[in-house]
C-alpha cells in the first residue's frame, strides 16, 4: 500500500516538474508584460514537434534535440514579440489575449498541415527503474529531470546574470527600470523568448512520456493557468509551490477516481479559490488585480 503511495508521489513530483517549466514561462511573461499568453500552448507543442521531427528524420536523440529546440523557439518568440505583441502593449487585456490566441491558431494549423492531426508518441528509454518495490519508468525520470534542471537554470539566470536582474527589475518596477537605463523593449523581447524556451523545453520533456498533437498545447495551457492562478499570477515562487501541489494532486486523484474527475475538480476548484483568495496562495493582494 505504501509502495503505491510512494510511486504515486514520485510520479506526481515528476509530472509537477513539467507543469513547473510550462507555468514559469507564463508567469515570467505575465510579470514583465502583464500579458496572458495563449500562444504559450503552441510554443509547448513547437518544442515537442521539433524533437519529433529531428528524431524521425535524422535519428537525433530526443534529449540532444534540445540543442536545436532552444535556439529555434527563442528566435521565433523573440521575433513574435518584436513584430506583433509590441504593437498592442498597454492596450486592453482583451486585445493581447485575442492576439496571442490568433498566434496559437496559426501554430496549431501549421503543426496540423506539417505533421497531421493524429497524436504522436515516442519509444524512448522505456525500461523501468526499480527501487525495492517501487518502480518508475526511465522516461518519466528523464522528463522530470529536464524540468527540474531547466527550472533551476532559470532561477540561477534571474538571480545572478545582469540580464536576469534586468528582467526582474522590469517586472517589479517598470518605470524605475527604464529610468535606470534598461531598454524595456529589448527586455520584453528577451522575456518573451525566454518564456517560449521554457515552453519548448517543457514540450520536449512532455513528449518523452506523453503524446503530442496539434491542439495538445491547449490542455497544458489550461493546467498552466491553474498553476499560475493558484500560485498568484506574479509570483515565481508561488508558481513553484503551485506546480507541485497541482502535479501531485492530479496524480493521486487520477489514480483514485479517473483523469476527467481530476481535471474537473482542479478547474472548478480554481474558480472557487479565486473567490476566496483572488491573488492566489502566494501572490500579493490587490496591486494588479484590477488592471
Amino acid at each position, binding site marked *: 500500500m505504501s509502495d503505491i503511495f510512494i510511486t504515486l508521489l514520485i510520479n506526481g513530483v515528476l509530472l509537477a516538474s513539467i507543469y513547473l517549466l510550462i507555468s514559469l514561462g507564463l508567469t515570467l511573461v*505575465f510579470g514583465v508584460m*502583464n500579458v*496572458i499568453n495563449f500562444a504559450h500552448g503552441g510554443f509547448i507543442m513547437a518544442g515537442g514537434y521539433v524533437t519529433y521531427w529531428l528524431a524521425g528524420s535524422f535519428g537525433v536523440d530526443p534529449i540532444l534535440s534540445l540543442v536545436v529546440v532552444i535556439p529555434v523557439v527563442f528566435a521565433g518568440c523573440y521575433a513574435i514579440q518584436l513584430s*506583433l505583441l509590441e*504593437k*498592442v502593449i498597454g*492596450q*486592453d*487585456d*482583451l*486585445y493581447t*489575449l*485575442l*492576439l496571442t*490566441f*490568433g*498566434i*496559437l*491558431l*496559426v501554430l*496549431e*494549423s*501549421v503543426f*496540423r*498541415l506539417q505533421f497531421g492531426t493524429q497524436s504522436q508518441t515516442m519509444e524512448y528509454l522505456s525500461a523501468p527503474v526499480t527501487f525495492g518495490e517501487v518502480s518508475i519508468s526511465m522516461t518519466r525520470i528523464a522528463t522530470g529531470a529536464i524540468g527540474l534542471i531547466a527550472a533551476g537554470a532559470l532561477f540561477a539566470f534571474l538571480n545572478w546574470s545582469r540580464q536576469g536582474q534586468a528582467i526582474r527589475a522590469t517586472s517589479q518596477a517598470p518605470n524605475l527600470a527604464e529610468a535606470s537605463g534598461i531598454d524595456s523593449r529589448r527586455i520584453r523581447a528577451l522575456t518573451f523568448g525566454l518564456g517560449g524556451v521554457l515552453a519548448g523545453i517543457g514540450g520536449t520533456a512532455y513528449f518523452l512520456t506523453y503524446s503530442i498533437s496539434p491542439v495538445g498545447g*491547449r490542455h497544458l495551457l*489550461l493546467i498552466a*493557468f*491553474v498553476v499560475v*492562478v493558484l500560485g498568484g*499570477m506574479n509570483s515565481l515562487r508561488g508558481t513553484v509551490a503551485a506546480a507541485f501541489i497541482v502535479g501531485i494532486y492530479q496524480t493521486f486523484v487520477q489514480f483514485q477516481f*479517473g483523469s*476527467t*474527475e481530476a*481535471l*474537473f475538480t*482542479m*478547474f*472548478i476548484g*480554481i*474558480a*472557487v479559490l*479565486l*473567490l476566496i483568495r*483572488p491573488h492566489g496562495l502566494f501572490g500579493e493582494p490587490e496591486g494588479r*488585480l*484590477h*488592471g
Partner: protein
Amino acid sequence: MGKAGVGTASELIGRFAAEIDDRRMFYGLLASATVLAAIVQPFASGLVVTTLYFIFMYVALAQAWNYISGYTGYGTFGPHAFIGLGAYALGAQVVYLDVSWPVALVGVAIVAVVVGAVLGVILLRISGIYFAIATLLVAEGMRLGFLAETTYMQGSIGLTIVRLSSIEVYALFGVLALASTIIAYETATSEFGLRLMAIREDEQALRTLGVNPLRYKLPAFVIHAVITSLAGAVYALSLGFLFPDTFFSIDLTITILLIVILGGISTVWGPVIGALLLIPLQEGLRLEFPDLHVLIFGVALVALVIYLPGGVMSKVKSAVEKRHSRGM
C-alpha cells in the same frame, strides 16, 4: 477615380451611420431586415439557409457577449459554458422530462437565470485577466463535468434529441438575433446602459459614489447568460445530437470575440456587421480550403487586433465625424 470612389462611399456610410442613432431609423432598419429575412427564406437553397441561420446565431451570441464584455468591460472567455449549458438543459428536459421543445426553451431560460446569477455573484468579484481565465476554466470544467457524467447525459457517447427542420431553426435564430439586438439598443440608450459603461470606465469611482456595481453588472451577466444559453439550445435543436465537445468549445467563443472586434466592440451594430462579414467568409473558407481555414482565421485575428482594433464601426464613426466637421 479610385479616391473619389472611396470618398463617396465613406460619405454614404457616414450618412447612414449618422442617422442610425435615430430610434425610428433603428427600428425601421430592423423591420426591413426582418421582412427581408422572411422573404428570402423560401427562395434560398439549403446552404444559404444554413449560412443565414449561423449568421443569426452569431449575431445573438455576439450581442450577448458585447453586453457583459463590451459595455460592462468584463471580458469573458467562457460563453461556451452557457452555450453548452443551454444545449444540455434542453436535452435533459426533452429526453428525461418528456417536455416539448418550445416549453423546454422556457426551461432553458430559467436554468440560465439561476446558473448565471450564481456564477455571476462568484465571478464578478474579480476582473480583467483573472475574470477571463476564471470564465475559461469554468467552461472547461463544465465540459469535463458533462464528459464524466455517463449515466444521464451519456458523456462521450452523446445524447440524441429532437431535430428541427432548417426553416424552424432559421426562424428561431432570427427571433433571437432580433431580440438580442433590440435589447442591446434599448440598453445602450438607457440609464442602465450608462451605468454599465460607467462600470467599464471606472468601477472604483462608481463605488465611491455609493453605487453598488453588482446591482448593474449582475443583471448584465444574467442577460448574457440567458441569450447565450438560448442560442446554445437552438443550436442543439439544429443538430439533434448532444456531445460535450461540440458545445463546450472555445472555438465558438473565439468566433464570437472575432465578430465583435471586427464589427466594433461596445456598439449595437458591431455584432451584426461582424457576423454578416465573418460568417459567410468562414463558411466559404471551410468549404473551399478545409485545411487552411483555421490558419487564415488565425492570421485574420492577429491582423485585426493590430490594424483595426476598433472594428468596422470605428471607421464608420470617424467618417461621420469627418463629415460633420466639414459641414459645420
